């Protein structure tokens, strides 16, 4: 058969024309006859998630969707609101209807639960369940990752069915907020299974929940949640698990899904134009963490104490990045506002310090100027002993050269790194990008075998950040920055009892941080969820959950619900 370009061209033309056909049908168009659809119950919300929840037990679950769904099944003591009041996240009554601080013992709060609360099997929800949950949270053998301070609760006493007094180990503004991290579980149900068997137990089969929802169906492709209260506006949530972000976007655009998060960030502009975007503040911050140690030093002489670490930094400093002036200079070179504009289309923020990311502990102060300042950067480098020779900075024989470590899997990160590399190279520093597989990244980061590392972390709504900067965490291998100069100030944050004292501390901490510059913040991205076109719904995603307070979401347009 001879090659026939005409036939090939004709076929391509037909295929191309089909591809450029009319826009996809929306939810208003009736589905095809062979797509059997029965009339859905009123106010059913169809959502798309990438992964199913791993287990319906909040103290075993380790995936994000597991936490999101468990929050809809099990109650917390309070509703934490995504805003601050006197530098503390606001707590509204939920299980706890009132609380007061007792004179004695010191640091004791008495919590009063609502009366008449019941679990889904009719068993009363009492203070015993709260006490049981506190015991669970304190266990050493339970792989629960919450509760940043394990010894937060010194003791408790159940006073009556609806009253419990909890004594905290210190006096901190954030005691109740941290306490609220753990979801309350039914003692009569959870205690039937030994903790060592929790991971293997089928928690879906014999659910005992409080609500506002319960899981009616859960398989590896779909999930249905039904509301426990008939007055809840959204009575049913039908979730499908679609791994591919582009497919999620397509399904929301076509109207087959009502709501999704984890959409492709690279399609920000399309999502903003074609769907109803819901940008919500999130506590994910990305930064470049600088290694003050020589990359091989930590693995060769792993320090056992904070003093060992100080000595290591003194004896094996990083040839380029040990000096805070160099770190500040590099920060001044990066045009981070430009990165936000080009990559995030300004749907992200550039906080001046970690304490301005997300909840704005220092909103009362004008932020410092973070714009590019090449002259100041040059002055800092000169003061640190660097000289510019043939457009390249060097100190003796040492060029201003370092590598940036990152892990694969995100175009957004890759774009950031390339812009950073370009800015630094224009200034006269040479940067090598090490984009590696995630396990290699973890290995190198834990052994401090890097110069600079791209790091993303989800901050807590508490300004403590103990696992980020704390010297102990550095010794344990989890502190990316290996810095200890801020430790003492961070320790004070844990025990601050006064909002004014907190603000003063945070101002000092921010100044110390900006002087030391252990990390250069790149962005505090806003998370993006989206509703399908035409759906009129009051949705409240927040950093606490993309389905935050789902029971209060209201469908406001009568034509919106399928």
């Amino acid at each position, binding site marked *: *058969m001879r090659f*026939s370009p005409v*036939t*090939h061209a004709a*076929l*391509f033309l037909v295929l191309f024309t089909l*591809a450029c056909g*009319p826009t*996809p*049908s929306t939810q208003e168009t009736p*589905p*095809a006859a*062979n*797509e*059997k659809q029965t009339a859905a119950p009123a106010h059913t919300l169809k959502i798309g998630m990438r992964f199913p929840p*791993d287990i319906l037990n909040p103290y*075993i*679950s*380790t*995936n994000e969707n597991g936490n999101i769904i468990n929050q809809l099944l099990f109650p917390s003591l309070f509703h934490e609101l995504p805003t601050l009041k006197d530098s503390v996240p606001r707590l509204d009554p939920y299980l706890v209807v009132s609380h007061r601080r007792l004179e004695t013992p010191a640091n004791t709060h008495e919590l009063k639960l609502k009366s008449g609360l019941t679990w889904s099997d009719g068993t009363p929800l009492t203070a015993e369940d709260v006490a049981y949950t506190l015991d669970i949270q304190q266990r*050493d*053998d*339970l*792989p*629960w*990752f919450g509760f*940043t301070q*394990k010894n937060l609760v010194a003791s408790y006493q159940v006073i009556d069915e609806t009253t419990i007094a909890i004594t905290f180990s210190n006096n901190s503004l954030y005691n109740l907020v941290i306490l609220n991290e753990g979801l309350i579980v039914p003692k009569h149900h959870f205690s039937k299974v030994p903790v060592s068997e929790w*991971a*293997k137990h089928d928690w879906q089969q014999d659910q005992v929940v409080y609500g506002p929802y319960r899981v009616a*169906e859960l398989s*590896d*492709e*779909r999930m*249905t949640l039904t509301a426990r209260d008939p007055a809840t506006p959204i009575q049913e949530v039908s979730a*499908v*698990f*679609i*791994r*591919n972000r582009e*497919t999620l976007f*397509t*399904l929301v655009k*076509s109207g*087959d899904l009502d709501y999704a998060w984890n959409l492709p960030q690279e399609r920000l502009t399309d999502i903003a134009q074609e769907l109803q975007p819901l940008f919500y503040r999130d506590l994910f911050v990305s930064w470049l963490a600088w290694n003050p140690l020589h990359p091989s030093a930590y693995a060769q002489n792993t320090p056992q104490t904070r003093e060992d670490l100080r000595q290591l930094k003194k004896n094996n400093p990083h040839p380029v990045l040990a000096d805070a002036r160099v770190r500040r200079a590099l920060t001044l070179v990066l045009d981070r506002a430009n990165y936000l504009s080009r990559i995030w289309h300004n749907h992200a923020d550039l906080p001046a310090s970690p304490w301005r990311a997300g909840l704005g502990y220092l909103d009362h102060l004008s932020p410092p100027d973070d714009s590019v300042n090449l002259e100041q950067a040059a002055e800092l480098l000169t003061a640190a002993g660097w000289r510019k020779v043939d457009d390249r900075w060097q100190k003796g024989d040492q060029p201003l050269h370092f590598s940036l470590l990152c892990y694969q899997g995100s175009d957004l990160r890759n774009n950031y790194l390339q812009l950073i590399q370009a800015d630094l190279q224009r200034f006269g520093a040479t940067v090598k990008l090490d984009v590696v597989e*995630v*396990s*290699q990244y*973890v*290995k190198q980061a834990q052994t401090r075998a890097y110069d600079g590392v791209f*790091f993303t972390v989800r901050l*807590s709504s508490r300004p403590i950040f*103990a*696992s*980020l900067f704390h010297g*102990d*965490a550095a010794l344990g*291998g*989890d502190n*990316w920055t290996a810095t200890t100069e801020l430790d003492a100030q961070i320790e004070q944050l844990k025990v601050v009892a006064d909002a004014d004292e907190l603000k003063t501390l945070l101002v000092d901490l921010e100044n110390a941080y900006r002087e030391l510059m252990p990390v250069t913040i790149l962005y505090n991205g806003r998370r993006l969820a989206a509703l399908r076109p035409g759906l009129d719904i009051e949705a409240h995603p927040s950093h606490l959950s993309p389905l935050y307070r789902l029971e209060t979401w209201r469908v406001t347009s009568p034509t919106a619900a399928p």
Partner: protein
Amino acid sequence: MKRRLPPWRPMFFFFGRVLLLFWMVANLAFVCLHVAGNNPVDLYLDARLTPEQRERIKAYYGYDQSAAVRYQRFMGTLVRGELGYSFTRKKAVADVLPKPMLRSLALGVCACAGAVFIACLLLWTRQPRAGAPRWLQRLGYALHQILLVTPSFLIAVLLLQWVAVRWRWFPLYGSAGAGGVVSPSHLVLPSLAVALPFSAYLVTYLQEHLANHYQQSWYLSARGRGISEARLFWNHQLRMAVPLLLQIIGLYLPALCSGVLIVENIFGWSGMGLIMIDAVTGRDYPLLVGAALWSAWLTTLGYQFADSQRRRLVYTGVTA
């Protein structure tokens, strides 16, 4: 006089080889993951985890032990017929795998069947003496070339956009409606996405084989008796090609039934492809070993089947 082998011997050796293969696959999977480093807990990149919490989680799931101890435990469970516990799924591996296996098997088998059907049609159009009209021959040629160069993921995306989203002829995602595991309407698009490129490969393999028939005596004799070209193609030539076709399917079917990752990803089809990628990226040893054993089992069966077709191919004069 030649001694007759007892009937159980071939079966014994067959299963012995299979068990040996399983053992080698399981060891290889374990070694590869160990060399790759880390475990599911270490890869859980939440900086709020303190070192103590991380160690506690590791201890709970047994990842705090040395590789030797883990290997011993792992082999012990395997010998007992258990596949262990999946950290990423929070279930026994034996509970995680059955439905994805069934889905991948259904997808693989349907894709194969679809590919054979499409390949037969394409072969008919590609053979100059099979009785197809001229315009259809040109179309078939063009289509074959396009399918050869178009990857399955691109076809999947196009099918999703046109057939599912625009025309709504088939469901957009998933493998079944509520309560089911696999439904026929959900199978169509993913199977087509896999079948179309595969059919092009089948045509490439088979067309040379069919072209040899035209000079053979049985063909010339049948033509001399007045049997039409189309009838000769459909009733005789294709039948002669069946052993070769079955051998090729025997070699490819295991790969299809082990999971077609990209197509599964696009259509939200929870098959073995996604399981494998989750297991590797999450360093979930037990899940990966379970998935690898499934793949090894299918491959063994497929190759045995392909091997059994060898005699038929010798008989038909295809191979020596």
